[in-house]
């Protein structure tokens, strides 16, 4: 079943998009939201559990103070008000991986509310209003066994891992983002990217979208151009990369326009994002009739952060990302365009770390936004999520600088790194990529090239040094690229002058 879509440009001729983003951030606290269980990722299933996070009869929650602290710091960094008094609430619904069949969350009394974040796209600033940021617990994780797709449909049975149950989450909800027009997909992506940068800077989460520690739900609706109304929205769940955020918005805009264009109504529903095909498909229907029967959690006393504590936490906030970008651009000497590309690719941190490891700013930028950006695009992942670290890039560039590698060989080293063949030095050794510094072999190759191209050699002898390029090319070809082109040139000139 393939969707009819309206080309993106045509969507904008008839409609204004409105977006709403809900981002779940898994905190990196040592223990869970309401119990003392550890939170490490990747442990054996059901080994990080206790009566409380398993929802055993009689067990009770106790609020993790560190999680409240992280929530407040996130709120302050998003320019939010911090509630003087707020409560947890129960969100009631049945699901096999939810131990209590209610999620302890916050409802009408979130800890953080009324904030904003300024997002830059192509040099233009959009203000994204933050409605709220609230605390809640994660659910367990279901593994559906025996089906073809890993989805519950067609599965033979399901296994549940409760290690994730009770991991603290902060859900950050924007107000409707209006007026982004054609830039809506980029604004959505930039918002999530900038939010991720902020979370990283705060140090409150691992911030790994690929591991689900940041998950975005994308709400989208269209309204007739200039009408100033809000259309019916769909909520696309678990969009787990920056690139997908952008693609999901783009896809839903085209799909909505197609549905509306047929004179049909948009169904208010949850949709699933398919990373591989780049489409969304219908999930469960979500109407206003879905009733979570929220009420204040009677097992927990209200959270009332003192103003003194809030101010103490404000003092621990890291540098504002916008200010940081300005500072780094000046330090690195990047042009506005170079900086915009860097931020757009989500490569600010990896470039900063690469530079910190000793690489020049331009070399770091060249690799991350050139070769590595291309590889990321091929793999359909974000640049920072490649299996190449800033330290790897710094080492590769160091090898280039010392003459052991040239750019062509360096690219082959990245092949090896992406294939999981070990460190840069291990890849160089295993693939035999070092530049040939055997003067004898090199000299023989130069002699052979001169002999094979007597006309070119004559030109050089006549002083037309520029003609050396052709001979260098021939030598490099003969050496399969593993030679230092500068040294080859020297040898040619020595022999012919």
């Amino acid at each position: 079943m393939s969707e009819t879509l309206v080309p993106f440009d045509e969507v904008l001729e008839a409609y204004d998009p409105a977006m709403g983003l809900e981002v779940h951030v898994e905190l990196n606290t040592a223990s869970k939201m309401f119990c003392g269980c550890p939170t490490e990722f990747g442990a054996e299933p059901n080994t990080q559990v206790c009566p409380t996070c398993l929802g055993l009869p009689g067990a009770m929650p106790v609020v993790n103070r560190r999680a409240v602290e992280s929530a407040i710091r996130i709120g302050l960094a998003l320019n939010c008000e911090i509630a003087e008094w707020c409560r947890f609430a129960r969100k009631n619904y049945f699901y096999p991986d939810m131990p209590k069949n209610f999620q302890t969350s916050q409802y009408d009394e979130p800890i953080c509310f009324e904030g904003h974040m300024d997002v830059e796209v192509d040099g233009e600033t959009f203000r994204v209003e933050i409605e709220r940021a609230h605390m809640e617990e994660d659910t367990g994780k279901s593994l559906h066994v025996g089906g073809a797709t890993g989805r519950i449909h067609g599965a033979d049975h399901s296994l549940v891992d409760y290690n994730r149950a009770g991991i603290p989450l902060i859900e950050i909800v924007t107000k409707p983002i209006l007026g982004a027009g054609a830039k809506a997909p980029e604004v959505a992506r930039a918002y999530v990217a900038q939010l991720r940068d902020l979370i990283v800077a705060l140090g409150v989460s691992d911030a790994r979208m690929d591991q689900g520690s940041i998950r975005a739900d994308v709400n989208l609706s269209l309204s007739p151009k200039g009408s100033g109304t809000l259309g019916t929205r769909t909520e696309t769940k678990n969009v787990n990369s920056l690139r997908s955020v952008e693609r999901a918005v783009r896809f839903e805009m085209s799909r909505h326009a197609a549905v509306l264009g047929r004179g049909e109504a948009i169904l208010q529903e949850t949709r699933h994002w398919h990373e591989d095909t780049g489409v969304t498909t219908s999930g469960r229907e979500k109407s206003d009739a879905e009733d979570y029967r929220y009420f204040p959690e009677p097992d927990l006393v209200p959270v009332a952060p003192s103003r003194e504590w809030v101010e103490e936490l404000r003092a621990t906030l890291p540098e504002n990302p916008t200010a940081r970008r300005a500072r780094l651009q000046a330090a690195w000497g990047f042009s506005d365009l170079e900086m915009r590309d860097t931020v757009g690719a989500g490569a600010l941190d990896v470039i900063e770390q690469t530079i910190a490891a000793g690489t020049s700013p331009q070399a770091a930028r060249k690799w991350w936004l050139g070769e590595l950006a291309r590889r990321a695009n091929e793999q359909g992942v974000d640049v920072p999520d490649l299996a190449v670290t800033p330290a790897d890039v710094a080492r590769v560039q160091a090898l280039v600088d010392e003459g052991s590698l040239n750019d062509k060989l360096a690219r082959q080293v990245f092949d090896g790194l992406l294939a999981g063949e070990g460190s840069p030095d291990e890849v160089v050794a295993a693939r035999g990529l070092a530049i040939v510094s055997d003067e004898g072999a090199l000299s023989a190759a130069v002699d052979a090239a001169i002999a094979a191209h007597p006309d070119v050699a004559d030109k050089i002898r006549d002083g037309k040094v520029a003609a050396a390029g052709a001979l260098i090319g021939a030598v490099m070809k003969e050496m399969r690229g593993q030679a230092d082109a500068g040294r080859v040139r020297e040898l040619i000139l020595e022999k012919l002058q």
Partner: protein
Amino acid sequence: MGDWLRSTAAELADALAAGETTSVEVTRAYLDRIAAVDPAVHAFLHVDADGALAQAAASDERRAAGTLLSPLDGVPIAVKDVLTTAGLPTTCGSRILEGWVPPYDATVVRRLREAGLPILGKTNMDEFAMGSSTEHSAYGPTHNPWDLDRIPGGSGGGSAAAVAAFEAPLAIGTDTGGSIRQPGAVTGTVGVKPTYGGVSRYGLVALANSLDQAGPVTRTVLDAALLHEVIGGHDPLDSTSIDQPLPALVEAARQGATGDLSGLRIGVVTELSATGGQGGWQSGVMSRFQESVDLLVEAGAEVVEVSCPTFVHALATYYLILPAEASSNLAKFDAMRYGLRVWPEEGASAEDVMRATRDAGFGDEVKRRIILGTYALSSGYYDAYYGQAQKVRTLIARDFDAAFEKADVLVSPTAPTTAFRLGEKLDDPIAMYLNDLATIPANLAGVPGISVPSGLADEDGLPTGFQVLAPALADDRLYRVGAALEAALTARWGGPLLDRAPALEGGAA
């Protein structure tokens, strides 16, 4: 040996200290008594004879070594089956938890173990503590030792009957709307609901989290104070637990027993009696109540009439808040991780299994309250029901505040009637709910209350209870007033009320 059965916990503690008996001897005597009379009473759902005797032997060893854990070390106890016990089944009187053995102890149970009290077993109750007669237990009703054809009260009828039938010197109950105090009243025993937050709820399988409180079920006021001091106090695992020391409860009970209440103001609550309240108040209950008030006056107390007008809305308020919280608490019983699992058919989905299990595992009263609570919390009804109930609850708390300006304690009959016959109100939920008319306001406001035996009603010869309520955190006042009344009544009767209970078949006591 029979003597030890009739001894109070305080007397047992003294006898153990004096070397007149051992914990093993006392524990065995109670286990024998259970074996003899429980087939008729059915106070216990599970008896742990081996565990109790092993704990008693350990207590005797500690005594020999001089390393006692508490004044009650070695005195056995029964625990309501709503508190988790590591290694012992915990069913909450429900089929849905049949066979579940918790991996952890409730804080109250842990404190009992840490104080050296051997645990005799788990007592019967209305399913998930929903009821006033223990008839809603999935495992059959408990019978009132005063008349086996009558109810022992509820939901903690098992704990009250166990103590009244001399099957245990002490028991733990839980009180959400009167489940400790009303069974106390109808079985001639003492029951205390502490201040909300005074005793940890960790491991108490929640009925209504904002109302539940565990407390002592005993034969004397002093025993209740001794037990309260063992189980009470702050617990970091319960964030609603109060982080300050308990008042001196045992001291208050000893002081009260001297019989001097001069300077104390007692408020008789108009709305909680036949003169100004709802419901059918039995005349024998009112007579015994008035006599008790007179005795307190003789002890030097001053009586004032107080009115708490919003109390007439307490029952309605309670039956919105309780089902709302309960409907959410009981959602966890879904057959996924523990307890009953019913497969409706081959290849059933998780949802099918949940539905079939909940249908088979919950009784009618539980289903009734889940439906009520689900409705009360539903979008569009929340404000009219749950939200409104919370507002009335605040008004009830204000009425208490105002009343405690005029009086140091408030008093009323504990329950409007004596024990009714098994089956009599089973088909009339409202009539059943009315039993808790006088006890519910305390739960809504979080204040402590005690029920003390006040005699036998003339018309049926069955026990009646006298309720004392105190301001939050002033639990010591309950013990002072309760002990004074107990001393005066015992003197008048020439012995404890339970001496007048009929002998049970199979029991020598």
